[in-house]
């Protein structure tokens, strides 16, 4: 619990909380459930960034009003309408911003979240970033939540992924302590992409996923504050970790690479190397070139066309990948690319790489 108390506080004045609860209640009355909270990184005021980028939203209509604003937090209510080729999306959401983290609170369906909320975030890239948490983070969150609420937590079902981000077809509809789900996944070299959790008395019932979406199926918004604090902390940490790695910011223009270590010497297998290059080739909005591919090495240059970031991706050792930012490489681009790798290749930790 010592760690829990060190997590950043979220400034949510009572009036803002009331507004959110009122929104949720009204949606409940309409029969809409559950509440989804989507976490995003916003490098500036979310509303200002939206206004700045309004030209890009030729197919979207926004109505919004700020409900309340303090020095560190703001709450804005949105109605968003977007024309799609075959139909039209329309729904409402709240954007609660605390520092550089924005929580989008909505009871909208999956289509609206993907083609509305995430579409909006992508249009505001690189100022607004869709980040991620890992399977390990989800496990840490559950551990904190369990000890804080003093309720044992059980899983209802999980979506598990394996190498190359393939969904494990055997979606687990079991019931057991959440740790069993993680242990079993580890044993089978899988990782948890999404997990539905409830307490024994069903006071808490929610779902967590690696794309930072929290689905509340039972309980009050405030009940899950610890989860939002943890996600905030992780997102800020990740943002800081990826920041200032461009060569233009370093003394003597030296490099500040990062390393993704894996547990085994994956790249000795030719098919894995080839499939890995295929994963890179599918990285959206990029140019790449393969400078070298041998056994077990490869060296690839990547140009992120969205914001002109460039980095190299290489495996000099068979059990790791080194990503080296070049003259100008944004934190947004590194986050987007590592998310792509974690989603489509394999989950792992990300650390600094020292070297010559």
């Amino acid at each position, binding site marked *: 619990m010592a760690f829990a108390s060190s997590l950043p506080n979220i400034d949510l004045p009572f009036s803002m909380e009331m507004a959110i609860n009122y929104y949720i209640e009204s949606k409940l009355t309409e029969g809409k459930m559950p509440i989804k909270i989507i976490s995003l990184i916003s490098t500036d005021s979310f509303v200002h960034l939206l206004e700045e980028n309004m030209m890009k939203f030729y197919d979207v209509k926004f109505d919004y009003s700020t409900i309340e604003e303090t020095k560190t937090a703001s709450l804005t209510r949105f109605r968003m309408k977007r024309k799609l080729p075959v139909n039209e999306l329309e729904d409402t959401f709240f954007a609660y911003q605390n520092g550089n983290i924005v929580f989008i609170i909505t009871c909208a369906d999956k289509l609206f979240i993907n083609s509305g909320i995430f579409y909006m975030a992508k249009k505001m890239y690189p100022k607004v970033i869709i980040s991620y948490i890992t399977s390990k983070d989800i496990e840490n969150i559950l551990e904190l939540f369990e000890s804080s609420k003093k309720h044992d937590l059980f899983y209802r079902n999980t979506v598990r992924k394996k190498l190359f981000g393939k969904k494990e077809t055997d979606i687990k509809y079991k019931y057991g302590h959440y740790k069993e789900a993680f242990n079993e996944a580890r044993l089978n070299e899988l990782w948890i992409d999404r997990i539905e959790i409830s307490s024994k008395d069903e006071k808490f019932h929610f779902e967590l996923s690696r794309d930072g979406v929290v689905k509340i199926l039972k309980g009050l918004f405030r009940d899950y504050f610890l989860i939002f604090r943890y996600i905030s902390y992780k997102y800020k940490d990740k943002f800081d970790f990826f920041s200032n790695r461009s*060569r*233009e910011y370093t003394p003597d*223009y*030296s*490099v500040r*690479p990062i390393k993704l270590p894996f547990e085994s*010497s994956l790249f*000795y297998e030719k098919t894995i190397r080839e499939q890995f290059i295929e994963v890179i*080739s599918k*990285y959206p909005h*990029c*140019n*790449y*070139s*393969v*400078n*070298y591919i*041998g*056994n*077990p*090495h490869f*060296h690839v*240059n*990547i*140009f992120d*066309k969205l*914001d*002109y*970031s*460039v980095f*190299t991706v*290489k495996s*000099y*050792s*068979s059990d790791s990948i*080194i990503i*080296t930012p*070049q*003259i*100008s490489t944004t934190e947004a681009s590194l986050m987007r690319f590592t998310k792509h790798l974690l989603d489509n290749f394999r989950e792992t930790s990300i650390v600094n*790489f020292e*070297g*010559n």
Partner: protein
Amino acid sequence: MTDDNYLLECINNVTTDIHRYFITVHLTLGMKHYLDNNLECRFIAAERTLKNANDQSKEIDPDLIFQYENGTKGILGEIKSSLSHNELNVKNNVFEQLRKYDQDVIGWDSSDNLVENHDILHLIHMLDSDWYISVYNKYEGSEIKLQKDYCIVEFTDLTSVKAGQGDIILVRYKYGTLGCDSLLTKFKENLHIEIDSLSNNYERLKFTRKRPPLAYLMDKLWFFIFTSFGRYNIDSDSFDVKLSEIIKIVQDYYYPWAGIEGENSQLRESWIKEALDMFVKINLAERIGTTAEQYRIHLRKKNLPNDMGKYIIEKICKKFIEEHPRKMIDAQTSLDNFKMESVKSKEDT
């Protein structure tokens, strides 16, 4: 040979050239890394020009320069990452270069820029080493007669000893002798250069003094240099840039291996200009303006494939075939012709 085969052969050869150059840079970095920690034999430079002691108008540019015995003796090293298996080429080019290295030269790291004596070291890719040694043995004493000690070592591509032991470039002794005993012994024991240790240095030192393959240079310009200008024009798919601005960025980020008088970067202006001209030919850039050398780079041109490395190589080869109508010659000869323009100015270096 059909046009398709001709194109394929060209693509394969250019790709091999890029791989070999990539290895050459890593090998040079690796030798530097090893010798920086060797007390007896010191790494002096990777790209220094030395002059013939008897005729200072004659210059040589060895890939590697080492000194030993407290700097009183030296080694001139030459990396051959690619040798066409053509005896005439060896006699005309390789032996000619050896004869130049076999003279006393000025430019060493000493008070009078001289050493008492020096050896010659050839580092040859393992696919070519046996063939080359057989040719050398055949002509030794007739076509080629060296006064200095001469040693040949071979090197591998990036390879692995075995899983879990790290990955290396292997450099091992093949022929002759060297005055620096510790280095000779190391070659005989097999020198392992750990690749991980070269990773960060390669990001700053991507070019040796040797002229890079055109496609390799264009790849680096496209990904590392042009992008640093593009970000100032984020809403546009193209941007305009002066040659002088490109050179400034190259000088800042790809500065020379060691301080070399009169040189400010790993790349020559003439190489960059040649690469820019090729970008124009393959429609990824256009020349604009009439006075200063200025280019419009189409960095985010519509409909370009994601794999720009492959695209650039294909376009260069297609351009070459277009400009050199098909003749009854084999692809390697064609590529040699293609590289001729490069070789021509290699003499300039």
